[in-house]
């Protein structure tokens, strides 16, 4: 038992990879067993991720520390707090559902598909669990490759373009981040996040200029991933071209890596720069909220609509983070999880429709409520949760962010609220066009409703959606402590520096 406790994070990271290896060893002929193995391993991973989430407080964050490289010293340093345990839980939760979603729709080269899906999960959990900057970067980059293949092989018409665009955008961002990481190492002598942080707090080793540059180097990498407004153009392409499971993972987890990175690195490491840039970033986030909503409104393609709604929702997360108030940050984290669930569910629903009709154009549908009653009920619930109706998950996060924004600047509140209204407009309007009215296309008359597998997937999603909306307390309580410490550090660092501001000595930093 001790051994298990000491290596829980290693297990949760590499269990999916083990599954991928097992599938690879099965050989080429047996697609059905590949599916089963993938489901088995992703379920096991989910169980372990539950254990991580429930036990991280009593088990000291499941910390693991093994020296890995000697010179420069890089450690295999893993640990989780409320934030990362939350994200690991999200990853563990979504992956088995992705396996189920792909159960029938992936028939070509199914083994490889599940190998890549599981390898991707290893990368994602690794990103959330790493406490060493280089180890973090390692997982961050490695994860691109399976995602690239998932989009590029099993995607739709323009998949090659979309997948390479996705990789190139991320690589350009991470080029800057790697420079930043190495620079930080040169200043502090360590890649270990706690040590780097200690060093920065105690010795104020960075000049303000260097801090701003470093902040930007990290921030741009994360902003591309989120994506924050001017960097968002890869997202609609990648989302639309990806297979359903790819879209779910992309929206559910990959985008969250950007906001996670901001919370984990940008704010705690460079608090002054974060304060300095906060107004600009909040502005960009609000532009993203409004712009995403407006563009989503006019999309003829259902999947593209959901993709742009992601831009808007993630705008809320970024806004919440850079408002830098405890409740807003908590709201942002909550929104990260709930967007993963709602938008993940929306992509699943769109994927199910695509499986049946091989089109996602809104004008191809209409009146589906009569031919697919169960499906349209699920769709309605998920839509409502996505637009932030009270008693559902979307509401809690947005509410907290909007409340927090008021303390910072009233105009943020106004624009963010406009974003909420617009979300209702584009989602409900799309719902109306797809499900209500007369059946205009003959093909839609005899379209099959959800089968058992689909009902199972959607029921699970709906339970989580409503559960998180009605009773958010257990989630929020676990987040609370992590966020409070972070905020404390943010404020303390700024206070320290303002006190010392007149006597800022040039000898410090390089």
């Amino acid at each position: 038992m001790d051994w298990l406790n000491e290596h829980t994070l290693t297990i949760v990271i590499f269990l999916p990879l083990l599954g991928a290896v097992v599938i690879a060893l099965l050989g080429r002929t047996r697609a059905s067993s590949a599916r089963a193995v993938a489901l088995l391993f992703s379920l096991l991973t989910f169980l372990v991720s539950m254990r991580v989430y429930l036990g991280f407080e009593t088990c000291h964050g499941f910390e693991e520390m093994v020296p890995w490289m000697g010179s420069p010293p890089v450690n295999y340093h893993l640990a989780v707090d409320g934030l990362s345990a939350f994200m690991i839980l999200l990853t563990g939760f979504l992956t088995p559902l992705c396996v189920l979603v792909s159960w029938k729709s992936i028939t070509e080269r199914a083994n490889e598909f599940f190998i890549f899906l599981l390898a991707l999960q290893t990368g994602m959990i690794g990103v959330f669990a790493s406490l060493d900057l280089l180890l973090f970067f390692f997982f961050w980059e490695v994860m691109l490759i399976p995602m690239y293949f998932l989009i590029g092989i099993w995607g739709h018409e323009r998949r090659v373009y979309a997948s390479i665009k996705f990789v190139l955008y991320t690589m350009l961002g991470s080029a800057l981040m790697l420079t930043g990481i190495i620079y930080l190492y040169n200043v502090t002598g360590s890649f270990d996040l706690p040590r780097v942080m200690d060093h920065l707090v105690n010795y104020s080793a960075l000049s303000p200029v260097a801090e701003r540059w470093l902040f930007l180097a990290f921030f741009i990498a994360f902003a591309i991933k989120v994506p924050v407004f001017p960097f968002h153009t890869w997202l609609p392409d990648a989302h639309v071209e990806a297979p359903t499971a790819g879209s779910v993972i992309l929206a559910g987890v990959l985008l969250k890596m950007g906001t996670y990175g901001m919370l984990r690195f940008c704010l705690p490491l460079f608090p002054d720069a974060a304060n300095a840039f906060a107004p600009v970033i909040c502005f960009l986030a609000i532009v993203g909220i409004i712009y995403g909503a407006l563009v989503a409104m006019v999309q003829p393609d259902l999947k593209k609509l959901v993709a742009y709604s992601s831009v808007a929702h993630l705008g809320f997360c970024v806004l919440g983070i850079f408002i830098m108030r405890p409740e807003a940050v908590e709201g942002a984290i909550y929104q990260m999880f709930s967007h993963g669930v709602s938008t993940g569910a929306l992509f699943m629903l769109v994927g199910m429709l695509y499986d049946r009709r091989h089109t996602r154009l809104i004008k191809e549908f209409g009146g589906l409520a009569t031919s697919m009653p169960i499906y349209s009920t699920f769709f309605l619930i998920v839509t409502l949760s996505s637009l932030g109706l009270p008693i559902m998950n979307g509401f809690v996060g947005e509410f907290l962010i909007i409340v927090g924004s008021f303390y910072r600047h009233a105009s943020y509140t106004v624009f963010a609220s406009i974003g909420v209204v617009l979300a209702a407009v584009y989602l409900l309007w799309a719902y109306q066009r797809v499900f209500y009215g007369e059946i205009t296309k003959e093909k839609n008359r005899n379209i099959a409703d959800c089968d058992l597998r689909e009902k199972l997937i959607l029921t699970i999603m709906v339970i989580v959606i409503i559960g998180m909306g009605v009773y958010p307390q257990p989630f929020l309580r676990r987040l609370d402590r992590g966020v409070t410490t972070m905020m404390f550090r943010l404020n303390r660092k700024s206070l320290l520096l303002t006190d010392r501001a007149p006597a800022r000595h040039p000898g410090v930093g390089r």
Partner: protein
Amino acid sequence: MMTLLPVDMMRILPEIILSVFAVLVMLLEPFVRGASKKLLGWLALLGVLAAAGSTVRIWLYPWPGMGTAFGGSVSADEFSFFFINLFLLVAGLVILGSMDYLERNHADHGEFYALTLMGTVGMCFMAASTDLIMIFLGLEISSIATYILAGYRRDDRLSNEAALKYFLLGSFATAFFLYGIAFVYGLTGTTNLLGASTRMGAPGQWTAFAQAGLILMFVGLAFKLSTAPFQIWAPDVYQGAPAPVTAFMSVGPKAAAFSVLIRIFLGSFTSANALSMKILWISAALTMCVGNLGALWQSNVKRLLAYSAIAHAGYVLVGVAAGGSKGISGVMYYLTAYALMNVGAFLLIAYLAGPDEQRVEIKDYHGLATERPAVAACLTVFFLSLAGFPTTAGFLGKFYLFRAAIHSHLVGLTILALLNSAVSVYYYFKIIVAMYMNEDKTECASVTLPWPVRAALGVSVVGIFYLGLAPNDFMGLTLIASTSLFK
């Protein structure tokens, strides 16, 4: 008049072993017929292994194998031994990979192996020499061998063109190098690096003559390194030469030239730091950009990799510009990683190309992953490593180089290099796209890979992951080797 001492001979033992085997291969060639020409390949491989064994033995028991020899013109130190082993690795992999290639292309003559060994001898002398004339001799030995190898497919026009181009431009470049040596000799009265470096001038006070000598030597080396603006020959030659030869010369002579560059610029003429920094900075920046931008438009795989080889020389130059034991050990690590991935890629391309190398366009690889998943996966590993993705040696190589660069305050150059390597992903992935995301049937599917080639590929792939995941021991070696330069 210098006397030959037995101890001097001990200190060039690896070179002697290689030369003996090269001569043996030549002598035996007339007596071996038909299919058994492969035996000569195995003999050459044995020579490579024997030479490698001798260096290991000397590394473990330094007396009498380590030290200077021939009046200080050769230095058998850890630095040279590291590079010698790198060349031996490249030669060994190339010989393993060429035996069946030569048979299939009806070019199985023993000279191929003899020339490969002689080329390696030249490179070993380049790495071990501390005298400019000796360096020049090593340069010539290795160059002449590779000129001939480049034209080894005698019936092929491209191959002939490659050989001639390489020969003409190469001799021109060595003339530059020699001219630089003449300058140094004229100024200092010696060609010994140690002696010359003290007399060239105090830091910051080099005369125009001295600077010109240094620049001329750099130009001569830059040709071998294929760094911009002296890279023009590379794409044509790499494309025209037989693929295993391209594997050999895209790594071997390049690494040898880097060892010379390090010895001259970082080991000896340190008083010209300001000047050499400028030269290295500019040429690194130019080389990376030219290589990567050129590669973006290529549709021929060999040509694409030629441009990528140029870009990689640029990355390594960043490490050289960073200098210090960090920079040098980074360069050593990177060159080893580069040797594994580039030789592996070219060997696989050589076999996929089929008889007379007909299938070397990217479109020839369409659908390879469905027909031959293992082959495609192998090639993917090489390309991911070249692109610098984590878990492969290519990533850590770049990491070590750029860490050294940032340590030496070359932040701008590092950002440029990282952006370049992000761009490079585009063209490496073009080939991956062709293999994985295309439904067409490929003709490459019928290719058989004989077991020696599989062994060579296996060594490369395992090496790439070993270096990429557990670099500690190897980094230790490179650190020992790089500090020995400053003793």
